[in-house]
Structures are given as structure tokens and as C-alpha cells.
């Protein structure tokens, strides 16, 4: 938090030195509007995370997405990330909820990576119009194996870093 605050303060000072107070205010009003627009979605994301924690049966989740869930767990995480609606305001609270109810780092990594790389939301809304159909499809096909591989690498590293199965805090 402090680091970010300092980074922002330094950046704002640089903008002020370059563009004067008008430049600073212009960015501020733009970002305040953005912030206002995002807030309801953040609330929705937080509620989603809390409800999911409540609804998902813990034993079942730790069986199908836990450390011993194998390739199947990574595939479930990947599929879940790919179909998850919404933006970062849903993906991260939901991922945090999965960790809480017993998913391991590997499956959660697969889910988050799948959401950013093959989730349809961003691809349809932004990548298609900007980069075109060919590039987007090509990029997604190349990205297909990455969530499972990243999840597997995550598990591989995790058991070596925390051999006693240190719980994610």
C-alpha cells in the first residue's frame, strides 16, 4: 500500500511538472469517474465471493481442486476461469473464495491464468475489435495449454517451497 502510494505520488508530481495543475486535474476527474463506475461491480464481485464461499461444499472443493486433484483439478480450474463472467472485479474475489474453501495454489493459478488468457470476456469486448479476428484466435489457440502448465508448475514449485503444506495465508 505504502509503496503504491509513493509510486502514485511520484507519478502525479511528474505529471504536474510536465503538464501543470490542469493535467493533474484532468486525470483525476477521469479516474474518479472510472472509479465511480467500477464501485458497484466491485461490490457485486465481493458478494459473489462471499456467497460462493458459503455455497461450495468445502470437502468437495478440496477433493476436486485441492493439492491432490491432479490434472483433473487443473482442468476444472481452467474451464472455470474460461467461463467466468465479468472482469477483475469478479475473477479475483472468486479466486480468493476458492482458496478459502480448499482449492490449492495450482488449481487457483490455472483458474486465474485461464481467465486472463482464454476467458471470453476480454477477448470479445476488447481484443477482437482492436487486434482483429485472426490474431485473437491465433493468440488464444497458442494460449490454450498455458493455464494447465502454469498450474502444474505452481504445484511443482509449491510442494518444494512449502514441503509441510504451509497453508496460504
Amino acid at each position: 500500500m505504502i509503496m503504491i502510494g509513493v509510486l502514485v505520488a511520484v507519478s502525479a508530481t511528474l505529471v504536474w511538472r510536465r503538464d501543470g495543475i490542469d493535467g493533474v486535474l484532468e486525470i483525476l476527474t477521469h479516474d474518479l469517474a472510472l472509479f465511480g463506475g467500477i464501485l458497484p461491480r466491485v461490490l457485486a464481485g465481493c458478494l459473489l465471493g462471499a456467497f460462493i464461499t458459503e455455497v461450495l461444499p468445502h470437502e468437495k472443493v478440496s477433493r476436486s481442486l485441492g493439492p491432490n486433484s491432479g490434472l483433473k483439478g487443473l482442468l476444472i480450474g481452467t474451464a472455470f476461469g474460461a467461463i467466468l463472467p465479468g472482469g477483475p472485479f469478479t475473477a479475483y474475489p472468486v479466486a480468493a473464495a476458492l482458496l478459502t474453501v480448499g482449492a490449492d495454489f495450482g488449481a487457483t493459478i490455472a483458474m486465474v491464468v485461464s481467465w486472463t488468457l482464454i476467458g471470453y470476456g476480454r477477448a470479445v469486448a476488447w481484443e477482437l475489435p482492436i487486434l482483429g479476428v485472426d490474431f485473437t484466435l491465433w493468440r488464444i489457440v497458442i494460449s490454450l495449454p498455458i493455464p494447465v502448465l502454469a498450474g502444474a508448475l505452481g504445484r511443482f514449485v509449491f510442494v518444494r517451497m512449502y514441503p509441510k503444506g504451509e497453508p496460504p495465508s
Partner: protein
Amino acid sequence: MTAALIIDLTLWGSVAALAFLVWRRGRVVLVSAAREGTMDFINIVPRIGLGVIGSGYIAAIIPQEVITGWLGPDSGWLGVLAAVLAGAATPGGPVVGFSIGAVALKVGGGPPQVIAYVVAWALFAFQRLILWEIPFMPAKFVWFRAAVSVPFPFLAAALAMAIGKP
């Protein structure tokens, strides 16, 4: 505007559906879960606020032409490395990375480098890690995830070189 509307509808629709599932377990459970979600929200708002309001300033001082220049044509693996670094340094937000990728393609950037750039940006754009991921998730998880993601833009570039452009 319609895309945003669809996002909001699916989002609140999912919230309502899950709320119903929770409610079937009892009113008390629903109230306590809703309270917990709201508390998370209240805790997260200041951090998101700092991130969103601050990110405009960070984006303003990173010159985009410099990043585009790094993705030069036929730059080989050095270009891929530069692309990955550029992806990590590019401010988050849904548009910036894709736009820079599009510009880089137009001015003759190599497709594998642009792939590496877009994938690196999607996986670990520094600003998105700080703005979105850290507020919601355990910091330990976020850094761990970012670290294990590092090889994959390179893998994507290698695959792109192997299978060639469509």
C-alpha cells in the same frame, strides 16, 4: 455501452442466483454472507481507489512509443525478452496492452514478439497485479502466481514461431 450492460446483467444475475442458493440454507446464513461480502467491499474500496485514481498518473508518465519501439521487427529472442518486460511494464486496463500490440503489428513488429507482449501483459502487468489482484487475494498467492507465470510468454512466443502466423 451495451457490452457494459451485458456484463452488469450477468454479474448481478450471478449474484442473485447465488444469493438464492445461499438463502435456501436459511435467512441467517444469507444475511451473514452478505455482511461478510460487504465488509470485504468496504476494506477493498480504499485500495482500489488508490489504484484506479493513481493508475492514470502512472500511465501518463510511461511513454507508449518507447514500448512500441521495443517490439521491433525480427528482433528474435532478445525482442521477445524486451516484449515480456514491456508487457509487465504496460499499465493495466483492458485496452492499453491490446492497442499497443496493434500499433506494434502495424509498424512491423514481429508476431511472436507481439504475442509474447500481449500474453505477458495479460499474465503479469505490474499495475494490474497491484491494482486488482493484491487487494482481493493473499499477497503471497499473487507473487507466487506472477513468478510461475514468467516462463509462459516465452513459451507462447516459441509456439508462435513454431506454428507460424495463420
